Every structure is written in structure tokens, then in C-alpha cells.
């Protein structure tokens, strides 16, 4: 998958895992902060995101500091997926 495909794949998972009602992938901006933006995600969502990355891409985030640098917006997460995915 190229970057664009991974991005769309991730946005689809994001909507499913977080049950984001009335949100479609095209409504999620790539550089919009996930936790302080319109999506309004919170700490429980961050755990859901860590589970998502583990299950869908084989990425384990065990270090909270590392997590804060990755789970910023779609771009930072997709970059990390492209570099670290194991499936």
C-alpha cells in the first residue's frame, strides 16, 4: 500500500474503532489534532488507538512518551505505520 492507501485504511479503522458517528474519512483532516480538534478524542480513545495500531498494523506502543509523539494527527500516525508496521 502507498501512503494514500494507508491513510484511507487508517481513517476507516479510526471511524470503526472509535464509533465516530456521522464522520466519513474525507471529513478527517490529515493535519487536524486528534485530541484537541473537532474530533474531540479523549484518553479512552488513545487506548483504543493503541489497540487499533496493534491489531491492524502489528505495532506495539508501550512507551507513553513515544505515544504522545505519534498520536498527534493522521499524518504522524500514518508516518509511523509506514515505518513500523509488521503486517
Amino acid at each position: 500500500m502507498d501512503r494514500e492507501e494507508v491513510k484511507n485504511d487508517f481513517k476507516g479503522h479510526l471511524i470503526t474503532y472509535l464509533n465516530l458517528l456521522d464522520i466519513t474519512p474525507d471529513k478527517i483532516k490529515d493535519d487536524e489534532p486528534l485530541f484537541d480538534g473537532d474530533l474531540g478524542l479523549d484518553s479512552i480513545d488513545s487506548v483504543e488507538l493503541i489497540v487499533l495500531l496493534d491489531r491492524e498494523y502489528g505495532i506495539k506502543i508501550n512507551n507513553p512518551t513515544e505515544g504522545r509523539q505519534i498520536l498527534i494527527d493522521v499524518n504522524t500516525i500514518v508516518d509511523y505505520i509506514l515505518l513500523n508496521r509488521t503486517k
Partner: protein
Amino acid sequence: MYLKDVYSISPQVTHTDEFINGNYKIYSKNILSVIEPSYSEMIPASLLRRMGKAVRMGIGAALPLIERHEKLNGIVIGTANGGLENCINFLNQIIEYDEGVLTPTHFVQSTPNALAGQLALMSKNTGYNVTHVNGPLAFENAILDAMMFLEGATNKTALLLGAVEEISNYNYNIDLIAGRYKSDYIDNNKLITSQTKGSICGEGSTMFIVSNDANNALAKLINLKQINYPNEIDLEYLLNQFLFENDLKTEDIDLLILGNNGDVQFDSWYTLLKSFFSSKKEYVYYKNFVGEYRTSSAFALYFATQLLKGRIHHKGIEGDVSSIPKIILIYNQFEGIHHSFILVQSVV
């Protein structure tokens, strides 16, 4: 204990006057899912997206009451299974991901007390908060708890009392294999006379405001009685004892609300119960509207309040009511094991 207000979400349109006005939904399937109101105006989207169906419809039924009755002293909920779909999803994930990383939301939403807790948080209610989970008598025990709480309390004391149960497709299939539900589809309005094994599956959430204050009450809940594993003689004794304890005789009961669910294996209990009364005793059913579920007696109680207020003129559907009743006896049983009586009286 007085029933001051009620809100029901059920497979009928009970969140508006449609059901009261006699517009009954007919389903040609064996799963009767609730018809939900729009939650978007009452539940913030950030909370709504996480809620399982049980929590969602519980809150949907409770919030309108909480808005109308601000000073509540506690929340008492009865649910046999709570967030069943989330519970099963969570358990399946344990297997699917080999006891690895699990999402928290399914677990949080699956706990039976998630509803009472969420209601307390949303309404900032720091009072009594209890969820009863003992199977088909969960709502009856919630009633009992509320009655004890109100005993000796001031007239201004009020509680939110209610029940919720949701259908899980996974669990439905297990129960179907176990013979709890009919193998052939039938119309729900033909449920009572179906004379085959099993019932049809329902769900719902019904909430009440209960208080010692009779002012503007919908009805008075006189008392309730429950028994497990009775035989036929026990049932008659229990009924007579229950009526005696409440200074009533069988002829004082104007109407029976019966929990017949069309299961030929267990509906004979209702025939037996009717035999203790005069053959002219009027009766109505309710599971033809909402299906079978373990806290369906909460819907029966909602139904009773509407009949006592004369809001439902329930003639010729399943059993007849020729006039507005003053005292109603609700009798429900689950698979011949768990039985309950609830006495409800009109308030003039």
C-alpha cells in the same frame, strides 16, 4: 410507593403517544427491536458514540424524567444482562486476540451498572446508586429496593427506578438453539395463541420516578411478591397470601396483566393463575407488543399506569378491558421458575 412519571422505549412507539393511541406495530419476525427516539439532542455526541444499546436506551428513557424531576435522591436499576452485546464482543475478543490487547470500551459498556453510573455522572446525582442483576427478577428486586428506600423517608424523597434489557444477536442464536425462541417466524399479534414451543425475543427500557408523594401520581404501587421454583399449590397459596397481606380479595382485582409469551411449555402457569379468579375476570397481555425479555415486567408496569389513567382503551386486542380499572395485578413468570406479582392501584 407512588409512580409519579414514566418513560418507555420499546418495540412499540411508546416514546410518543402512538402506542397509547392504539397504533400497534406488527412484526413478522421473532426479534422485536426497540424503536428509539432521537438521542442527538439529549446525549452529547462524544458520549453517544461509546454507548452500547442498553446504556443508550436506558439513558434515553431516563433523561427526560430527570429533566422533569430534578431533585432525585437516587437511581435504582434492574437489568438481567446489562450491555449484553458489548459483553459478548469483549469475551469474543479475549479469544480472538489470544488474551492480548483488548479495547476498554466494550468492557466499560458491558458492565450492568454502566447505565446507573452514567446516569449519575450526567445528572450529577451523588445519591443512592444500585443496579440489581438477578436474572428475570432483576426489576422486581429493584422495585423492592426502592420501596425499602422510601419506607420512612420524607414525602419529598424521589428515586429514578427502571429496567433495561437489550437483544444481542449472538445471544439470540444461543437461546434459539436452546429452544427459548420459536423456530418459525410468527406475527407478534398472534404470539399468545401460537401454541408452539418458545417465544419471540424482545428488548426495552422503561423508567419511572417513584416517591412517597401522592400528588399528581400516575398510580400507586401497592406491593409486590416473588417466588422461585413454586409448584401449582404454592402459586395459589402465594397469591392468596399476597392479596390477604394487602387487604384484598380476588374480586377486588379489576384487571390482570399477564405475561403470556406464547410458549406452550410455560403458558399453562397463566391459565392456572386465571383459574384462581372468576371466569369473568378481565385480563390483558403485553408480550405480544414487546416480546419476551427478562425485565419485561417494567413494561407491564408502564402498561398498567396507562390503563389505570384510562389513556389506553385496550378493547379487543388480546383480552378486553371494558372500563378503566382501579386495581391491577401483574403476574409474570420466566420458564416456570421465577414468578412475580405486582399490585398497582389508581390514584384519584
